[in-house]
């Protein structure tokens, strides 16, 4: 009896000792804490979406329906399957040109948007890989001209807000005759009316998404091309392999992993994109969600759940592929110089000029167009261009300093004097800075701790937990935090925005930190541990100084992305809170000059920051790629 109790006490002490040893290592303590926090911040909002699909929503179709049946109980406590059964089994009858057409609820609210979402995601993947991949090959493997200029301008579409290109597309091709609204530049200059399929719907959305995400493909595939050991190709050349065969049998298989990760990234990002389909008039899951979130709130949550499932699917595929045997190490050999394919003396200029023109459209023109828009007296009034009259421009959108209702200002002050706009900018900066600080710090710590515990299951769990929001469509994350935030009463607060932004952007920081920490030999820190140097000193004096570039990227990426984030935030606050939601407000008001002006300021700011940080620290947005909305 006594021996049993002493053994028990010994067992307890042993467990306690073990726990103390485990927790005394800072990386273990941090992992434990972060694992718990991340589980809550990631899983709980997701859980709330799922729960939302079986709840009753005041003023929504589920409550009305229930009320008719006299089944209403206390709201919030009753669970109902109505939203699911109605969505999947009921039909709706509408009048289309005097004929009554009956369609199922699911086909209107679910299958059509889902099909569109999947289609644009697939097309965007193809387009991005084709455009970005070809560009990557040309820049890294051929004697293309103007490489430096081209490679920096090529990533502009990714740095700029997502809707930039969509808005530019409208400004270029829209016409009153075809799409309604104002005439675009094409009509004004060439009197050309583009057909409707070109202006709205699947085609422009796919093209714009492809251009927006092509930099992903360029950076990921180009990274492999750049590091690839030229010996691999030279070995094939020595064996007298034809060049096309070398490309298809040696080069292409080596970049396959990069292509795959681009596909996953673009797919999940395109899926959750809201602004582009919104501006270019295509019903996707995300626009459908926004459209039905008041009337059919519960069913909207079902759409969000489906988007989330796509996210999980992509995560699983990603796990499968990155752990496979075909995950080659391409940086093996010693040969520094990679063989350069000669495009020919004419070819190299032709290719370069082609890309200069293309990037002009995607990188420079939007900025010019936004700038021009702010000086037009009325939206779409390009008379100063067509008639060459400088007097047909105005500075009123910028400098009006009092409330005037005429001139189409709707009582707004000019951009420079408009307190609402600057408040919104202030809000955006507050959110961006906080998100960057919190996400950057947590991400760096995760990168550090996971690299220290490579074999541990818990570490890989924490890593996956932090990584999950990365592959979740932005809108789904937004929905999750919207429901979560409304539930705990922090809707429309900066706190909620910062929380959502932090959770969504931790992967940027954790990825870039983990990648670089993995390169750092564990011995570097062990050499300090052996000498009994405390943890904080090891971090501040050794690890952080060595890794400063990637750590700064880890802070920079969330910051830049936050500045231009709309999809994630638009559900979480009122329109005046931050600048990107403010944009939507001006668009709805028809004050396009204001939104153009804000876009202009935003783009210039982001480009300035990127250049500044790049010059100061050597860190750049492409080093921590990739992700984004």
């Amino acid at each position, binding site marked *: 009896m006594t021996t049993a109790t002493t053994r028990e006490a010994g067992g307890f002490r042993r467990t306690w*000792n073990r726990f103390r040893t485990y927790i005394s290592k800072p990386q273990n303590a941090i992992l434990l804490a972060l694992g718990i926090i991340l589980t809550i911040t990631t899983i709980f909002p997701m859980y709330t979406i799922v729960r939302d699909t079986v709840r009753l929503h005041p003023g929504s179709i589920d409550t009305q329906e229930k009320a008719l049946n006299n089944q209403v109980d206390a709201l919030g406590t009753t669970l109902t399957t109505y939203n699911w059964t109605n969505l999947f089994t009921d039909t709706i009858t509408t009048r289309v040109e005097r004929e009554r057409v009956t369609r199922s609820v699911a086909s209107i609210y679910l299958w059509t948007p889902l099909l569109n979402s999947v289609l644009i995601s697939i097309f965007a993947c193809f387009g991005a890989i084709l455009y970005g991949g070809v560009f990557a090959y040309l820049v890294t493997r051929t004697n293309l001209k103007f490489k430096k200029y081209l490679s920096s301008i090529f990533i502009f579409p990714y740095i700029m807000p997502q809707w930039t290109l969509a808005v530019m597309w409208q400004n270029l091709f829209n016409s009153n005759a075809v799409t309604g609204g104002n005439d675009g530049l094409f009509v004004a200059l060439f009197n050309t009316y583009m057909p409707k399929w070109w202006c709205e719907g699947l085609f422009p959305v796919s093209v714009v998404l492809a251009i927006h995400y092509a930099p992903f493909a360029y950076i990921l595939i180009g990274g492999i091309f750049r590091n690839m050991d030229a010996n691999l190709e030279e070995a094939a050349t020595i064996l007298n392999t034809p060049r096309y065969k070398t490309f298809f049998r040696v080069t292409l298989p080596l970049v396959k992993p990069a292509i795959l990760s681009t596909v996953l990234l673009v797919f999940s990002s395109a899926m959750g994109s809201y602004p582009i389909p919104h501006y270019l008039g295509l019903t996707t899951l995300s626009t459908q969600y926004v459209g039905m979130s008041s009337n059919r709130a519960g069913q909207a949550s079902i759409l969000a759940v489906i988007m989330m499932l796509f996210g999980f699917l992509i995560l699983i595929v990603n796990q499968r592929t990155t752990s496979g045997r075909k995950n080659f190490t391409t940086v093996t050999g010693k040969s520094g110089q990679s063989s350069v394919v000669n495009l020919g003396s004419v070819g190299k200029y032709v290719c370069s000029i082609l890309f200069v023109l293309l990037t002009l459209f995607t990188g420079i023109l939007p900025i010019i167009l936004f700038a021009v828009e702010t000086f037009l007296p009325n939206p779409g009034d390009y008379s100063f261009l067509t008639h060459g009259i400088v007097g047909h421009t105005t500075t009123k959108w910028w400098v009006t300093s009092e409330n005037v209702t005429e001139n189409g200002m709707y009582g707004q002050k000019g951009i420079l004097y408009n307190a609402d706009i600057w408040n919104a900018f202030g809000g955006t900066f507050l959110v961006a800075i906080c998100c960057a600080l919190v996400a950057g710090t947590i991400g760096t710590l995760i990168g550090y701790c996971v690299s220290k515990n490579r074999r541990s299951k818990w570490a890989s769990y924490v890593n996956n937990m932090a990584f999950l929001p990365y592959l979740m469509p932005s809108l789904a994350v937004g929905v999750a935090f919207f429901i979560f935030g409304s539930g705990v009463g922090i809707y429309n607060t900066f706190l909620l925005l910062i929380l959502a932004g932090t959770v969504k952007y931790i992967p940027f920081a954790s990825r870039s930190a983990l990648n670089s920490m993995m390169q750092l030999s564990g011995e570097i820190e062990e050499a300090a541990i052996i000498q009994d140097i405390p943890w904080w000193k090891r971090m501040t004096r050794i690890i952080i100084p060595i890794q400063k570039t990637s750590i700064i990227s880890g802070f920079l990426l969330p910051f830049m992305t936050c500045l231009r984030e709309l999809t994630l935030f638009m559900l979480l606050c009122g329109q005046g809170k931050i600048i990107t939601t403010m944009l939507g407000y001006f668009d709805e008001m028809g004050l396009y000059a204001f939104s153009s002006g804000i876009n202009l300021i935003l783009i210039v700011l982001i480009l300035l920051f990127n250049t500044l940080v790049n010059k100061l620290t050597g860190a750049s947005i492409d080093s921590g790629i990739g992700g984004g909305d």
Partner: protein
Amino acid sequence: MARIELSHVTKRWGGFYAVDDLDLMIDDNAFVTLLGPSGCGKTTTLRMIAGLETPTTGKITIDGVTVFDSEAGINIPANKRRVGFLFQNYALWPNMTVYQNIAFGLSNIKEAGLKVSEDGEIIRNPSAGGAERKLTREEIDRIVARVSAIVKIQPFMKRYPGELSGGQQQRVAIARTLAPGPRVLFMDEPLSNLDAKLRLEMRSELQRLHLSTGSTFVYVTHDQMEAMTLATRICLISNGVLQQYDEPLTVYNRPNNTFVADFVGNPAINFMNARGTQQQDGSFTLKLLDRYDAEFRPGEKVEIGKWYEEAEKEIKAFEAKVRPAEKTNKDEPFKYPVAMVADAEEKKDPDRNDFVLGVRPEFVRICDDGPIEGEIFSAMPTGMETTVRVRVGNYLLTGVVFGGVLYRIGQKVRLNFAGDGTTLFSRVNGRLVACGTLNVKQG
């Protein structure tokens, strides 16, 4: 200054036993090398003693203090074990100068009864009492000056590691390790990144260092030459299992098994399959190299029947060990290499009359009256000695001849095995039966 004791230390990942039930006693002031092929668990052993890796089970004591005990759940972290560790890749902090690299650890020491002598030696006397204090800047300077003088790096104090050559980086790493005055110094293949000439130089410097510091050195290497020349004792490990723990010359002359015999020595030992029985007088009559009759006379008394009984008892005990998980990296008998011109079918399932003879190259003598007939297969003179390979039938024997003797390839020679250092192993379990003299009868 310190004695290290490992008992029943095991480290496994799932079913992979990196270190399998290791018992090891490292004496105070010893220079012990952990030797073995890559992946045998030697670095893991070292890191476990240093506290950088946590053993799965077992107990480790340093200087009488239990630093790890899986039973009691004790695990003193590496930073509290007061040991020095020299890393294979030096692990110099690239963001600090040489001076900062050495001084960084010193700026952190906080102890009672701390003193630094005029010539920069730390004197620890915690029993003297007094308040805990840190080292002053001037004291740190003195210590850095002393250790940098030992490894001769004074001219580089302001440089960054990236601006130093491999050898210089190595010296800085040594200085950094020595600075806090560790009682034990662990070294993980510290010379493997240096070129051959520098390695030789550093080897002798390490030996001097061991003498002058008086610390216990534990040194990991896969280079048997390094182990032979530096160590006071060699600990040979294979597949996580201790093979032999002895003084270098014992390991060389009386290898416990064919693995040890083959691993130590360059050029490698000659193995010959032999078959025969033990006679009344204790000697063995053997048939070897397909056609020669020979007599092996053991240097000590051995009775083969009893010897087998004891060996099997030990093997059974090893196999009967309780393991929480089945060992996936199985312990298989070492496949000793028999050098042949053309590969021949090997005899499977050896019985108790099958033996392996091991003859070191220096015991293979070329002499006109030798009983064995052969012809020169290859000859590699270095000036000091010539390594020759002689073809005997289908077999190849390696010998070392001292002096600048020139041989013609294809030349007919006669051989003999000299000395009493021939080793006889059992072919059943690869263990050493006895050392002795081998007399080959004229064929």
